[in-house]
Every structure is written in structure tokens, then in C-alpha cells.
């Protein structure tokens, strides 16, 4: 099995940790109504933070003790230096969908406990043929039974139909929107597209808001920052 190292980002940052713990507590509450194992993370326009978000979400879920598989289903993305990206592993989901390798050989271990990673793999053809195959549905079923959560990172909806094809095979969709950049029109369009294929939209993530704005959402954000005065001191 291949291994992959993710840098710790969420743990470094107080505010970020707060945001992600709020998110997974919401996901936990939502799961009581309708269970979901496989999640598609997509956005309306490129560059709104899907890759960062899905990696961080997988890390946080793994940190909460869930066996999490992060899948890079962005089969078109080429690695660009300086841009947030997964470096390609030797095998990936494209190899599995083509039938070249077994699933367990393609999945990488990571430096984070409970977190597993499946890269896109090196695929040069048109991804649509892979995504339309039945093997994607089979993959989602197998992965969903083996892992608590499967998070798939996909291309943006405005670029191509990859994300729609993937959403059709997953239980739920998370739509990432960038604060102050994504328009309501974009989200309405995405909503219409996703409803047309009967996808279940879990909700919208407002990404890349300023920290000042984030702190305003809570009336007492700094309460735990300085530590609560200890009522009971251990002797």
C-alpha cells in the first residue's frame, strides 16, 4: 500500500478548528434524518476551495474517529506548482475504473490515523467514459461499505459535467461557495442541475470568509480562547 503525507492545517488554527468542528457537528445532526456515506464536494466555479475543503474535512472526520476515504476524482487537473493540489500517486481511481488494479492497491495510507486517500491516477483520455461506467457505482458501494465516509473531490460544475456524473453515484452533495465571489445566480443554476439528477444537496459551505466576519457570527467567540477560570482546582 502506498503512503501519503498530509500537512496539518486545521490543527494549527484556532478559528479554523472551530469552523470545522461546527461543520462536523452539523453533519452528525443531519445524518440522523437521512444517512449518507459517500459525499461529493463540488462548487460552481473553479478556485473556490474544493480541494482544500475536502482535504480538511477528511482530516477532521478522521480526527473524530471515523474511517474516512478521500478520493480525488478531479481527473482533468494537472499539477501546477504553487497551487493547492495532491501530488499524483502511481495508481489512482482511474486505474481502478479501467480495471488495472484492485481497489486496496490503489488506496494510499496517510500520516493521519483513520484517513485514507485515493488519487486520480495518471489518466490521459476523456474522463467522461470512465465516469459513465458502472464501475463508479460499484466503487461507491464497495467504498461506502468499507469506510464510514467517502469524500470525493470533483471539478467545478461550470467547467464540465464530471461533478454531475459523480453526484449521481453518491449519497449527498456539499456545495462549496466562495464568500464575495460566487453569485446567487451560480448557486441557483447548480441547484437546478443537481435537483434534475435527484441529487441530495446537504447544504452550502461559505468558504474563504474573512476571520473578522467569521468571529462576528458568534456573540462570544473568544470565550474559550483565554481559558475558563477554574472552579475546581485539582490538588
Amino acid at each position: 500500500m502506498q503512503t501519503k503525507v498530509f500537512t496539518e492545517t486545521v490543527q494549527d488554527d484556532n478559528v479554523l478548528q472551530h469552523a470545522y468542528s461546527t461543520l462536523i457537528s452539523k453533519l452528525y445532526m443531519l445524518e440522523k434524518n437521512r444517512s449518507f456515506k459517500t459525499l461529493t464536494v463540488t462548487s460552481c466555479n473553479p478556485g473556490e476551495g474544493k480541494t482544500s475543503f475536502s482535504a480538511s474535512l477528511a482530516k477532521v472526520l478522521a480526527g473524530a474517529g471515523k474511517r474516512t476515504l478521500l478520493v480525488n476524482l478531479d481527473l482533468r487537473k494537472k499539477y501546477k506548482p504553487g497551487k493547492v493540489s495532491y501530488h499524483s500517486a502511481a495508481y489512482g481511481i482511474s486505474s481502478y475504473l479501467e480495471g488495472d488494479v484492485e481497489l486496496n492497491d490503489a488506496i494510499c495510507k496517510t500520516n493521519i490515523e483513520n484517513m485514507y486517500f485515493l488519487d486520480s491516477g495518471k489518466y490521459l483520455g476523456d474522463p467522461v467514459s470512465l465516469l459513465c461506467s458502472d464501475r463508479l457505482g460499484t466503487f461507491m458501494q464497495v467504498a461506502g461499505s468499507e469506510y464510514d465516509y467517502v469524500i470525493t473531490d470533483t471539478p467545478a460544475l461550470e467547467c464540465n459535467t464530471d461533478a454531475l456524473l459523480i453526484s449521481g453515484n453518491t449519497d449527498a452533495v456539499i456545495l462549496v461557495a466562495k464568500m464575495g465571489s460566487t453569485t446567487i445566480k451560480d448557486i441557483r443554476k447548480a441547484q437546478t442541475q443537481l435537483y434534475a439528477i435527484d441529487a441530495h444537496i446537504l447544504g452550502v459551505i461559505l468558504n474563504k470568509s474573512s476571520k473578522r466576519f467569521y468571529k462576528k457570527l458568534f456573540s462570544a467567540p473568544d470565550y474559550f480562547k483565554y481559558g475558563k477560570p477554574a472552579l475546581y482546582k485539582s490538588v
Partner: protein
Amino acid sequence: MLFRRKRGIWEIYAADNETERTLAVQDGEARNFMEFTEDNMELKRFLYTFLRMFWLIILLGAVGLGVTIYLYGYGAVPVYAADTKIFTLAKGSADSSRNKIDYQDILTNRQLSNDYQDIIKSKKVIEMSQRQLSGMKIDPDRLKSMISVSSQDNSSIVVIRAVSADAGEAGRVSLAVSDSFISTLEELTKTDIVGVIDEPGLPSSPVQPDNLKQILMGLLIGIGTAIIIIYIADFFDTRIRFKEDIEHYTKLPMLAVIPKYNMKSAK
């Protein structure tokens, strides 16, 4: 019509297929409920855009101010003003048996000084002064526009001011008009009730133009334009600005707000 909201987006999504129609109905139901619960998003968004684009108000205000100051201050031709002061007391009009001037005379003359303003601009005075200034070839309309008459409230002193780009011309016109006025008045009233106090000298420096009104107008026009631009920008702005926008305009649940951070590229 379900899409009746102000923000331009709703008109675009006129329901033309089954899914969108279903969405529209859901929207309508949700909105009826929202009317009671939501605070005013339109106002909130406008105020946000207003603050975000406040620099435009400052910029256009400064541009408006600058343009008017240039046009009316620096760009204008320097003008010179020459004043002739006339005292209009009727010493001969009083009863000949009395040699002194009483208070009643002063009151009467103060009222008269208002009439003089009309007399100075009359055709007769203008034509007479034009004859005096025959060497300069000024047509009556221009002469009329050069002259302004002012008197303080109920004062017996009338100031005849001539304004011109040429200092010498202003002085001569002022004096000529005053002379014509005095002789006309003497002819009309058969008295010698008026006399020149101060003859105009040669004005040495141009008058400061009184353009405060125009400059303020320029400032206001600049600010007004900026506010109109901000309003239009806000009307067509459908970008997500607040957390509430998602639920208000799309009816999708909000999962979380994630702050900005610098992610180091994964190894």
C-alpha cells in the same frame, strides 16, 4: 408571479421546466414564511455595498469639486470691477422755506433708492452712457450686462459697479453710467438730489469670483452620481455577501462558514 424580488436574479429563472416550476412553488411557500422571520436583506445588502464602495463617493465628490473649481476659479477670465458711489439725497426737494433736512426727507429718499436701480438699467440711461462711451463701441446689451447696482437695505448710498475683463473699460463704464444716471434723474425730477461720492479709480487687481454655489453644486453632482452608481451596482450584484444570503435566496441549508487560511501545499 413568484419571482417578484428586487434582485435581478428571479426574473432570469422564469420556470420553464418541471424541476424549476417545483422549485418556484417551494420558493413561494418558503418566502411567505420568511416574510415574518427574515430581517431586511435588501437594505442590509445596500448598506454593505454603500460602505464597500464609499471610496467612489469620495472620488467622484473630489472630481466634481475639482472640475467646478477649475472651471469657475482658475479657468475663468480675470475680471475687474469699478465702483462708483452715489448719494441720493434730495436737498432741493424739501420745502424751500426750510433749509435743514429732516428725517422725513431721508425716509423718502431711501425708498426712492430702490427705484433708481430700475432707472439705471433703463434704455434712456444706457443709450446716454453709450453716447458718452462712443469711442469704445459697446453695444447696449453688453453694457447692461456689465453693470450691477447695489444698495444696502434702506441706505441712501447706491453703488454702481461695472465689471469687465479690461480694468480701464470697467472704470470708464462705471463713471459714464453714473453720469448719465445723475443727469437723467435731474432731468426727470427737476432737482439736484444726487451726487457722486466716490469716483472709480483704476481697479488694480481682479475681483474674486463668488462661485460657492457652483462649487457646492459640483460637489453634490459628484456625490449624487456616486450614489446612483452604487445603487445600480448593488441592484445587479448577486454575489454572496452574508451568511443569510444562501437561505434567503436559494433555500438551501447553510452548513458552515469557513474562514480564509493559507494552506501549505500537501506533500
